[in-house]
C-alpha cells in the first residue's frame, strides 16, 4: 500500500491537483458558504483520470509485480490522500474563520448560519466519499471509454450532498451549537461522515476492482 501511494504521488501528482486543493482555503472568504470551498478541489481531483490515461498509467501499473486490482487500489489510495489533505487544509482555514471573523452589521444571522463548524467536517467527508464511490465504481468498468459519465455523476452527487448538508446545518442550529447536546451532535455528524467516507471509498474500490479484474486490457 505504501509503495503504491508513493508511486501515485511521485508519478501522478500534478500542479492542478495542488492548486485546486489549496483552493479549499477559500473557506476564509467571509461571505461564502464554507462548503463551496470544498467543491473547488474536486476539479483538481478530476484531472487525475484523464492524465492517467494519457500517461498510460494502467498499462504501466499492470506490468508491475502487483495484482491487477492494485491499479484501482493505488488510484483510490491517492484519491483518499488528496481528499484528506484538502479537508485538513479546509479545517485549518475553518478554524481561523470561526475564531477570528466577526459579522458585518445586519448580517449576524447569515454569519452565524454560515460559520464553519464541526458538523461541516462530516458533510465534507461524506461528499468526498460519495464522489469517490461513483467515480471509481463507474470509471473502472471501462477506463478507456467511460470518463465523462463517472466525472459528471460523481461531481453532481458530491455537490448535492455538500449543498444539502450545508442547508441542513444552516437550518438546524443544534448542528452548529457548542452546548453539550450540540457538541455531541456535531461530533456524531463528523465521525459519521468520516466513517461513511471510509466505507464509500472502500465500496468504490471494491466495485471498481471487481469490474476492472474482468476487463481485457
Amino acid at each position, binding site marked *: 500500500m505504501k509503495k503504491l501511494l508513493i*508511486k501515485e504521488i511521485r508519478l501522478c501528482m500534478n500542479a492542478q491537483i495542488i492548486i485546486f486543493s489549496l483552493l479549499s482555503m477559500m473557506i476564509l472568504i467571509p461571505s461564502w458558504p464554507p462548503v463551496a470551498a470544498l467543491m473547488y478541489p474536486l476539479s483538481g481531483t478530476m484531472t487525475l483520470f484523464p492524465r492517467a490515461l494519457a500517461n*498510460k498509467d494502467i498499462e504501466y501499473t*499492470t*506490468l508491475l*509485480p502487483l495484482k491487477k486490482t492494485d491499479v484501482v487500489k493505488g488510484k483510490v489510495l491517492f484519491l483518499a490522500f488528496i481528499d484528506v489533505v484538502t479537508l485538513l487544509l479546509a479545517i485549518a482555514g475553518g478554524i481561523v474563520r470561526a475564531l477570528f471573523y466577526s459579522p458585518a452589521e445586519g448580517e449576524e444571522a447569515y454569519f452565524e448560519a454560515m460559520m464553519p463548524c464541526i458538523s461541516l467536517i462530516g458533510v465534507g467527508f461524506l461528499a468526498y466519499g460519495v464522489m469517490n464511490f461513483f467515480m471509481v465504481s463507474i470509471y473502472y468498468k471501462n477506463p478507456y471509454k467511460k470518463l465523462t459519465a463517472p466525472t459528471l455523476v460523481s461531481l453532481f452527487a458530491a455537490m448535492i450532498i455538500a449543498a444539502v448538508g450545508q442547508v441542513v446545518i444552516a437550518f438546524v442550529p443544534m448542528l452548529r451549537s457548542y452546548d453539550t447536546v450540540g457538541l455531541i451532535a456535531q461530533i456524531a455528524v463528523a465521525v459519521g461522515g468520516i466513517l461513511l467516507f471510509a466505507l464509500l471509498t472502500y465500496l468504490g474500490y471494491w466495485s471498481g476492482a471487481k469490474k476492472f479484474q474482468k476487463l481485457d486490457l
Partner: protein
Amino acid sequence: MEILEIENLAKHYEKFDLKDVSFKIRPGKIVGFIGRNGAGKTTTLKCMYNLVSPTGGKILYGGEEALKIEKRFKQEVGILFGESNYYPSQTVKNLTAVTKMFYDDWSEDLYRHYLQDFGIDENKQIKALSTGMRVKYGLALALSRGAKILLLDEPTSGLDPVSRDELLDIFIDLVGDKEHAIFFSTHVISDLEKCADDIVYIKNGEIIVNEDVTDFEASYLPRPPRQIRRYPSKRQAH
C-alpha cells in the same frame, strides 16, 4: 522441471479466437514466438500476464496457477511490450526510481551497466528518447529486475542492426546460466536463427509449430529462391 507452462489457453473475441494454445518455456532456453500480424501473439502474451482474461486453459508457473500467485509470478516473470512509453513527461531517473521500488531482486549495478551500454541519459524525459532508445530503456528495466523469465513482445523492433545483435547476445548470455529463459515474439527470422532454441509458430490463433529451432529450420526455412517474375516494360511489350 518446467518453469512456465501454457495449457490449452483460449480466448474468445467476436471476430477472433485463440484456440488451445499450449507450449512450455524451459530454463536456459530462448523461445521464439512467430506469426503474422493479428495471429494472436500479443493476445497470448497478455493472457499469460493477466492483462486479458482467458476464456479457457491454464498458465502454470512452477506447477502453480499463475493467477493465484499473481504478485510472485509478476516478480519472477517480466514482460515488455515494444517501447517503454509510459509517463512521457517523467525523466528516466524518476521513472526508474519508482519502478525499482517494486522489485525485490533489483540490481542497481546491472541497471547502471545497461544504461551506459545503451547510451541512455537518465536525466532525459521519456518523450525525449527516440523509439529505439525507449525500447532499450524498457529492456534495461526488464533485464535489471532479476526476473527468471522474460516475455518480450517484439523487443528488436525499432532497434538498429548493431543494437539488435547486441541485444540477442545479451539474451544468449542471460540464459547461459540455465536459470533464466526468454520468450520473445518477432517478425524477424534472422533473430530466431541467431538465438532461439525453440520456435512456437501461431497462425489464426492456433499453434501450428512448437519444436526445436533446427527442426523448424529444416521444415520451414530453406526454401528454393523465389522466382522473380520479370514483366516486360511497356516499350518492350510493344
